[in-house]
């Protein structure tokens, strides 16, 4: 069993806090891990990445070989593009959808998301929306950890002791609020995983998720939507704009009728 993850982002986004949680969860499970970080020059608002390897067997290389990564986990959507050569066939991309436009030639709106949606297995996460809905706008990285969890050998609740270590000094409510957004991220990731596994395209999953309230997502019910999303009613629903709706039996009935 092995999980090779490329963590990507922009200097200052704190990708090492994500690495911290994944590392410690791996160690707590008795797994081996290696994590190559980037320090120094690259941190001043430049592209940053980390190679994370988790395995039940000893790990040799600190770097992931090209074409071997099981996941690219990015806290910025453009950054994914720099590391696609590492992704293995069938690997998944999980990216925050919020751009960091600190360069003059940042691609035009829409292009970056469209390029990600063209990938066979990609999940764009509205981490900013989820985090600010919980009044935790700085906790976008926690959302991303949650979204990645369904693809890793962890349960989302396992992160609590390490979230406690990171934020415990700020009080219990801060720890709990971080766990809430982490769970919301997990719901998004797990729900999307079910749909992708059922053969729904990244683009369709993305459009569907964009209409749903994250905390109402029940991964166990996700497969029920796989068959109906191509239908006329679902397409009509996706074509409308408007507030996010609850993902419940009423919605499933509406879409499948």
């Amino acid at each position, binding site marked *: 069993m092995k999980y090779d993850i490329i963590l990507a982002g922009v200097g200052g986004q704190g990708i090492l806090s994500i690495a911290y949680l994944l590392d410690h969860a791996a160690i707590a499970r008795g797994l081996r891990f290696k994590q190559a970080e980037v320090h120094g*020059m690259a941190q001043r608002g430049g592209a940053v990445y980390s190679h994370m390897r988790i395995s039940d067997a000893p790990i040799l290389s600190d770097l992931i070989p090209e074409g071997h990564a099981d996941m690219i986990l990015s806290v910025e959507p453009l950054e994914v593009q720099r590391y696609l050569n590492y992704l293995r066939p069938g690997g998944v991309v999980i990216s925050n959808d919020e751009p960091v436009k600190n360069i003059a*030639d940042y691609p035009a709106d829409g292009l970056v998301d469209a*390029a990600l949606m063209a990938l066979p297995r990609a999940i764009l996460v509205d981490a900013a929306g989820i985090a600010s809905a919980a009044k935790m706008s700085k906790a976008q990285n926690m959302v991303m950890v949650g979204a990645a969890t369904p693809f890793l050998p962890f349960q989302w609740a396992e992160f609590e002791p390490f979230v406690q270590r990171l934020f415990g000094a700020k009080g219990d409510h801060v720890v709990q609020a971080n766990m809430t957004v982490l769970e919301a991220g997990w719901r998004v990731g797990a729900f999307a995983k079910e749909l992708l596994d059922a053969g729904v395209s990244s683009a369709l999953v993305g459009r569907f998720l964009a209409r749903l309230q994250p905390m109402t997502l029940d991964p166990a019910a996700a497969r029920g939507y796989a068959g109906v999303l191509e239908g006329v009613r679902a397409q009509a629903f996706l074509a409308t704009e408007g507030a996010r709706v609850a993902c419940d039996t009423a919605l499933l009935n509406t879409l499948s009728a």
Partner: protein
Amino acid sequence: MAERELLLGDEAVALGAIHAGISGAYGYPGTPSTELFEFVQGCAEAEGIHAVWSANEKVAYEEALGMSFAGKRSIISMKHVGLNVAADAFVNSGVTGIHGGLVLCVADDPGMHSSQNEQDSRYYAKFALVPCLEPADQQEAYDMARVAFDLSEQTKLPVVMRIVTRLAHSRADVVTGDRSPQNAMNPLADTFNFTLLPTIARVLYQRLTDKQPDLEARSERSPWNVLLDGPDHSRGVIVNGIAWNYLGEAYEGRIPYPVLKVGQYPAPVAKIRALLEMVDELVILEEGYPFLEEMIRGVTGVHGKRIRGKLDGAVPRCGELTPMIVAKAMGLPVPDGMAPTLEVVPNRPPTLCPGCGHIDAFAIIKAALAPWGDVRMFGDIGCYTLGYYPPHNAIGSCVDMGASISMASGAAHAGMHPVVAAIGDSTFGHSGMTGLMTAIRENTPMTLVILDNGTVAMTGTQKTMCTGEDLVNIVKGLGVDPDHFKIIEPHRAKAAEQAAILRAEFEYRGTSVVIARRPCVQMKRKGG
């Protein structure tokens, strides 16, 4: 008692040194070595270890040598180019030898993630005729650091530990062992060894060369130099340090060829010969320069054997090794990997932080220089080196710490005018003072701008030695003409007035100094 800890390679070396009973840690910040010292610093008080950053690497090395004289153990850490600065002390300490164990951990940066070059410190160890250890992973980093102190005291020599960026900055779990107490105070009674007058140095240099067969014998039986057999003798492989991991990765741990894994120098020549005899072709995979490869090839090559490596292009000469490069060199198929799905992926280079005082300083300096056209400053090493890039276009050189001042002086000697140098407060303390003293004595027509942001920002906001009033006093003490010594707090709002102050100094045909003082925003964020 054995425990498992999550450690960066840097931290593994640090913990190994602590467990070996060091009494001191010395160093000057530099990526990728910084976290080694910082780890010791974090527990220095509890452990009773002296750990305060030094002004530069030479000072650090000499302080450690003093601790060794007193009979105690210490570790020195620096980045590879730091050893150029400490080289005088280092090479001579091979001749003096040591008393208390002394280990120099130097972090090389193949691929130049944050450095000016990718020099390979194994050459320095060979130059100084001292042993060198090179770990392949975090566990070896910890284990070797402990053993290095014993090796140092047994051979009475400084021991070099060479690590590289991908080990220094990679985290893994490490099993730790027992701890040794610190050495008791035991100053060297016979000072003959440390007094390198020529008559004495001749004796000591002879002694150093006489030690070489013992060092070679130690390398031959070292557990870090292992010759592993494999079923297929058509080819053999030599790897150093982390190259071992990439080779193992390429064959998923089952390497079909005999392999010599090198982790201790001087190079184990008998083992190299034994491997060569076994195989038809030898592939040398080195993280760093082709150090072993040059030695093995010699001038004439090895008769009847094909040698492959960096010198025949089987492995790229420049940059760091990767699993892919190693797999390719071994002739294994490598996946193409997915192409970007976006037509153009723009680069995202590092930039100065929003609100960084250097930004305003550059704007004001460029405005002051405008009458002379698009003049750039002789620059130095720090965050401000990023002033090379647009929109600043302010910095025009970056060579080595302190070079801004001396290069500006040389250009002024040649007749260039105006000549402006820019240096950070820490770099000034590291290597700038002597250059400025020289310029002042000659009244060389140049202006030095010292960008005092109150910290060693580039490497992570460590404590600087030359800031605020201390810096002012140092500059005054070097003898600058008080009429041509100005202090400004660069700010956009005062740009016109401050540019005028600077321009007057640029026009002046003598040595002038301007301190541009504004705190680093990252330092302020961290509460410094």
